[in-house]
């Protein structure tokens, strides 16, 4: 029995900020002070507040240490763990109040959140199945196998109103019922853990923080549709997630949650991992299944839909990780509990990966229907440096931008579609006034051009042509007709591409054209980039009245484009200048301007 548990985040975010080293130092210090049998160190999954990593929580006090450094550890051990004096100086400052510490759940970042899919992330040790069991793990599977028929399971999921969290938002129960209806000697349950959207990382965090929930949910799905084999398709770039899932599958097999005759019900189910090589198109369901079969990952026309002819030509169900993470709790708490959260047509919660120009970078889970303003200003802590909010990008390369005037929109599947964006997998990239919308559209198009599999012409050639037009605009070489051509091409690709990748690829362009047309026009007509991003349209100047001749800029210019005598105003040679902006950063007098 331990009197204290120290939870250290072992998610990818905190691992890259050094949590492995923290754990090692901590274990060394505990041994030195002889506390190793009293205090347990647990490596958990992601807490969500990645911007403050490495993160460490000490229970029973619930003291939340943020941005912990190895050199802080001896003090935390000798003061807090040995003598019980919390090191207030190192706590996440928002939790420090005058006479006590605030519980983490009462901080701005967590109090508006509702954690369902992320329930166990940052709470349990993902490499220990017993901790999952302690928090009601596998109870839902037991209930399903011993008390419910497959039809009842499907009806429960249908009644909950759960929709696919991978992007399109198809009702999960309905999907399962299609696959259940088709008779076959073999059926399959698949999980999409390919998570290709730049900026989205909730699926990875669930796999890293709570891998057993996926195993439990996929087994439930197998029972519901009559499948005995499941595959998790996860990208090879997620080594921690893959490792923890492997450990969890091993433990689940050992305890009999996978294998033959689970819970003595006569139901058999097993699960295997298939690694993807990180192609964006393999997140599309038919391409994913082709890839699991060992073939080149390319989509194929639908119908037939996977529920009829999916993996290896057999009826299959494919859901994404976050969708599965909701299943056990729907079974245990009932569909009414789930459908009591969210909006009329979008039930439950949604995890968003907050990134870009925002203070609290990380994972947040909120009920559907929460406004963008709440997510960005309250949970996200606003925009750094007092800059102004310009737009939020949702849905990655398939989504669109939400401008400031729509900040009070209640986020759900249908509302986002109505303003030309989409939920996508939940990446939410915040952009401030320094972001150029043409540049953003170009960035996403470049990504789709790279990732297009090349099977269908509209996507292979169309996205390339769109990219070229955007490139022209960003260089000030386009005409107003180019905007019309861009729009026409965008609609053509939307209507004619084979799979979701191509059909949604024009969305970033269409939505920025819709909300920020003036910026496109400024690039074309005035040859000016209003945000000061597009390099070809920028020139750097030194203001004579402000320059003190300190020579700092000249010394830092990587190409030697700045000249001038000491204590005299300097000059930039525009034929040499590469517009890197190093001089602006260095100038202490604000004498260098770009426009």
């Amino acid at each position: 029995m331990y009197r204290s548990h120290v939870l250290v985040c072992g998610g990818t975010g905190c691992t890259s900020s050094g949590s492995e080293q923290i754990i090692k130092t901590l274990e060394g210090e505990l041994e030195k002070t002889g506390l190793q049998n009293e205090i347990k160190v647990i490596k958990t999954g992601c807490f969500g507040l990645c911007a403050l990593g490495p993160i460490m929580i000490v229970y029973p006090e619930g003291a939340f240490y943020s941005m912990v450094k190895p050199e802080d550890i001896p003090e935390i051990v000798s003061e807090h763990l040995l003598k019980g004096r919390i090191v207030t100086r190192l706590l996440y400052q928002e939790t420090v109040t005058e006479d006590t510490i605030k519980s983490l759940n009462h901080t701005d970042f967590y109090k508006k959140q509702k954690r369902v899919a992320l329930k166990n992330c940052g709470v349990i040790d993902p490499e220990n199945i017993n901790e999952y069991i302690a928090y009601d793990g596998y109870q839902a599977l037991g209930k399903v196998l011993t008390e419910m028929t497959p039809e009842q399971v499907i009806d429960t999921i249908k009644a909950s109103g759960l929709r696919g969290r991978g992007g399109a938002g198809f009702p999960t129960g309905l999907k399962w019922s299609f696959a259940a209806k088709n008779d076959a000697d073999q059926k399959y349950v698949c999980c999409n853990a390919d998570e290709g959207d730049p900026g989205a990382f909730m699926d990875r965090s669930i796999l890293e923080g709570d891998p057993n929930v996926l195993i439990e949910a996929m087994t439930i799905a197998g029972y519901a549709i009559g499948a005995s084999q499941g595959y998790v398709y996860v990208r090879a770039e997620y080594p921690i997630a893959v490792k923890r899932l492997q450990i969890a599958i091993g433990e689940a097999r050992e305890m009999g949650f996978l294998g033959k005759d689970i819970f003595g019900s006569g139901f058999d189910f097993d699960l295997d991992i298939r690694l993807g090589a990180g192609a964006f198109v393999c997140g599309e369901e038919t391409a994913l299944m082709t890839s699991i079969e060992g073939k080149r990952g390319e989509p194929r026309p639908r119908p037939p839909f996977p529920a009829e002819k999916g993996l290896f030509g057999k009826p299959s169900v494919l859901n994404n990780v976050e969708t599965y993470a909701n299943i056990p709790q729907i079974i245990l708490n009932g569909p009414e509990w789930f459908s009591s959260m969210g909006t009329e047509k979008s039930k439950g919660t949604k995890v968003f990966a907050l990134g870009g120009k925002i203070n609290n970078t990380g994972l947040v889970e909120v009920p559907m229907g929460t406004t963008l303003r709440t997510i960005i200003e309250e949970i996200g802590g606003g925009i750094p440096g007092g800059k102004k909010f310009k737009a939020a990008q949702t849905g990655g390369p398939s989504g669109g931008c939400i401008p400031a005037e729509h900040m009070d929109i209640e986020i759900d599947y249908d509302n986002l579609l109505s303003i030309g964006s989409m939920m996508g997998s939940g990446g939410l990239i915040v952009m401030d006034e320094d972001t150029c919308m043409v540049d953003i559209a170009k960035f996403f198009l470049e990504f789709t051009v790279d990732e297009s599999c090349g099977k269908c012409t509209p996507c292979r050639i169309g996205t390339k042509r769109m990219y070229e037009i955007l490139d022209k605009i960003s260089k000030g070489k386009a005409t107003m007709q180019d905007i019309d051509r861009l729009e026409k091409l965008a609609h053509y690709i939307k209507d004619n591409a084979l799979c979701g990748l191509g059909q949604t690829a024009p969305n970033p362009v269409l939505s920025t054209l819709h909300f920020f047309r003036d910026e496109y026009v400024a690039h074309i007509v005035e040859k000016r980039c209003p945000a000061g991003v597009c390099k070809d349209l920028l020139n750097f100047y030194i203001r004579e009245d402000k320059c003190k001749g300190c020579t700092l800029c000249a010394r830092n210019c990587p190409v030697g484009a700045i000249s001038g005598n000491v204590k005299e105003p300097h000059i930039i040679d525009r034929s040499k200048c590469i517009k890197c902006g190093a001089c602006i950063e260095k100038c202490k007098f604000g004498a260098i301007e770009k426009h």
Partner: protein
Amino acid sequence: MKSLAELQALRDKMKGNMGIRDEDDASIRVVVGMATCGIAAGARPVLQAFTDEVAKRGLQNVAVGQTGCIGICQYEPVVEVFMPGQEKVTYVKMTAEKAVQVVNDHLVNGNVVTEYTIGANAK
């Protein structure tokens, strides 16, 4: 895993180890004075006895923690028990044996062990 009952038994067993991570305001707190004076007077075995006994009895609503010096060093090891909605009880000159008795009488059955409290010792 052959039955739901087996799983539930396992869950209940595992849950005992996890109660420490619940941030529930309704729980009982046992705080052991662990400043230099407390440690020198033997607070460590007392703390250990509390954690062991609480675990043995599977008391999920009890959190055992430590604190610094309360300022009554001659009475160390000092242990304070906070029950929700009640005045705190301060036990003094504690030992591992006394700790076991406090868990059984006070934490489980709600009877303060008056003879170990500061009130009884200060007379």
